[in-house]
């Protein structure tokens, strides 16, 4: 096949433009990384530079030595593991049951679930419910209200729909009940798909912010994102965050390098699951685009 001259120019310009877009996307992240590794004393002298002359791990060392930061990471890690496991369990159990056509009342339950994707009662009524359940300041208030969602159930049900009932029959002859069939046949079959849902759940739990803002007042129980908000955002406005005050009061490290080290640490887990996430983008995009 002959490449036309116009084609070649087109490709070159296209690649050039996309490279620029890629660099523009990467620049903020690169800059965060640079600031976080800049030697604190140099940062005070030179302010921001694109290539620090003196690198140091001081900001990281300090950050990881504070109780507040470690505790917040622990809380978020709990959400991302326990929360994800519970979400997957509840979502997959319900979706599987609803994918079996023989289930009576199936259409009614599906309708109930679909309606929740159309109308939400806002912020205050769920807040009152959490309060009445005495879950304020409990880490469970960050898991239970978001255990599953209508979109996830409908999407996962669509996946289970494609598993033929004949697969269950064989197991049922062996004397398994529905739970046995689900556990030993269906679940192993759908692991790759469950992994995709799990990754998206995990990222959502790790990034938990809004629900924590609503339901958690206790400083010790805040997830990482709230601590970050305290450090990064409250402290740069007039009010000044408690966490920032507590963490930056008696030390020599400028708050900027410390803040960016915190951003990097909070991003590392996402970068770690990112390659796995990439395999399942299309599915996630479907959820994301209809959900927002």
């Amino acid at each position, binding site marked *: 096949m002959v490449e036309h001259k116009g084609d070649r120019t087109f490709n070159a310009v296209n690649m050039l433009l996309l490279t620029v877009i890629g660099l523009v996307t990467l620049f903020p992240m690169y800059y965060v990384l640079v600031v976080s590794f800049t030697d604190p004393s140099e940062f005070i002298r030179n302010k921001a530079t694109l290539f620090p002359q003196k690198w140091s791990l001081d900001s990281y060392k300090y950050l990881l030595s504070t109780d507040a930061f470690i505790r917040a990471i622990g809380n978020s890690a709990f959400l991302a593991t326990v929360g994800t496991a519970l979400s997957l369990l509840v979502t997959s159990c319900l979706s599987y049951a609803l994918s079996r056509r023989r289930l009576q009342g199936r259409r009614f339950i599906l309708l109930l679930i679909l309606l929740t994707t159309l*109308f939400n009662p806002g912020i205050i009524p769920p807040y009152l419910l959490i309060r009445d359940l005495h879950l304020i300041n409990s880490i469970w208030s960050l898991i239970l209200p978001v255990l599953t969602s209508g979109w996830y159930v409908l999407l996962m049900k669509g996946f289970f729909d494609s598993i033929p009932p004949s697969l269950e029959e064989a197991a049922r002859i062996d004397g398994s009940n529905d739970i046995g069939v689900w556990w030993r046949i269906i679940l192993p079959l759908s692991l790759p798909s469950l992994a995709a849902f799990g990754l998206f759940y995990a990222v959502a739990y790790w990034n938990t912010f809004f629900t924590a803002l609503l339901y958690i007042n206790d400083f010790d129980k805040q997830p990482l994102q709230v601590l970050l*908000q305290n450090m990064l955002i409250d402290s740069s406005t007039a009010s000044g965050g408690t966490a920032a005050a507590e963490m930056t009061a008696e030390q020599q490290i400028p708050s900027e390098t410390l803040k960016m080290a915190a951003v990097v640490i909070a991003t590392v887990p996402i970068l770690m699951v990112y390659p796995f996430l990439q395999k399942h983008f299309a599915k996630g995009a479907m959820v994301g*685009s209809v959900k927002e």
Partner: protein
Amino acid sequence: MASRTEAAGGSKIETAYKESPAAKRRRSVWNGVKRDRYLYLLALPGIVFFLLFKYVPMWGILISFQNYSPYQGMWASQWVGFEHYIRFFSNPDFLILFRNTMAINLLSLIFFFPLPILLSVMMNELRGTKFKKTIQSIVYLPHFLSWVIIVGITFLLLSTGEGIINQLLAAAGFGKIDFLTNPNYFWGLLTVQSIWKDAGWGTVLFLAAMASIDPQLNEAAKIDGAGRFRQIWHITLPGIRSVIIILLILRIGHIMDVGFEQVFLMMNGAVSEVADVFDTYVYRLGIKQGQLSFSTAVGVFKSIVGLILVIGANKLAKKFGEDGVY
């Protein structure tokens, strides 16, 4: 209900006993439930979740017609009808919230929405898979960062003190620009942030749709002498037309929604006049100031308009011959 008639067909043997049809139906429904009891058990936690966390709060909406007091509870609180709604609509805050919401969403519709289409067309034209994969990995990444992190980075880049952009501006002899506290920049700043975070991610669905376009169409066009731009115009874009229409309509259906976290985090005293949207207003008045009934009314108003818009948008999609979402 379809499932019920289905089940009724399965109990022909019982006719000999001359049961009434209603009793027969009841019995076969019961048999089905008994047969599938473990299946119901699997569904139970999820159903309880939806009832407790999605349907119980629906009753909470009633407090928007009360002067709800947490000490008296919902039963004892005084009923006031539509008072809170009327107060909200006659309040100047309402117009401000409405203006800000529309401004932010219209900017997003004009400047954000076309970008993923453009970007996916560009990526689709790439011939080398390795380069394409790299670009994809890079532009998808910001989608997974939290708003806290993105706003934090924004401050790092744009603050008038240490922000690198302002340092560069100063070094180049320009004055510093108060990006973060000048109301004129606020809406634009939100749009740029959203573009950085999600324009790349937005290409996923378009690229998936493009992948299903028959490559023979392009070959045939090439033989007919069509250049790359004409192929894009006549083959690629028509191939993703459905996806564009569905996403556009969904976007319009959600025109009352502005991401709470982004606005809440970007907001400060200097820009609150242009920043406040329905959700941040509800949060501030309801959670922070304890005006529970009034803020619930604001939330209900927003949800009802949202519901009407989504249903309307869905109808519109079907008019265009698309499947719609519901």
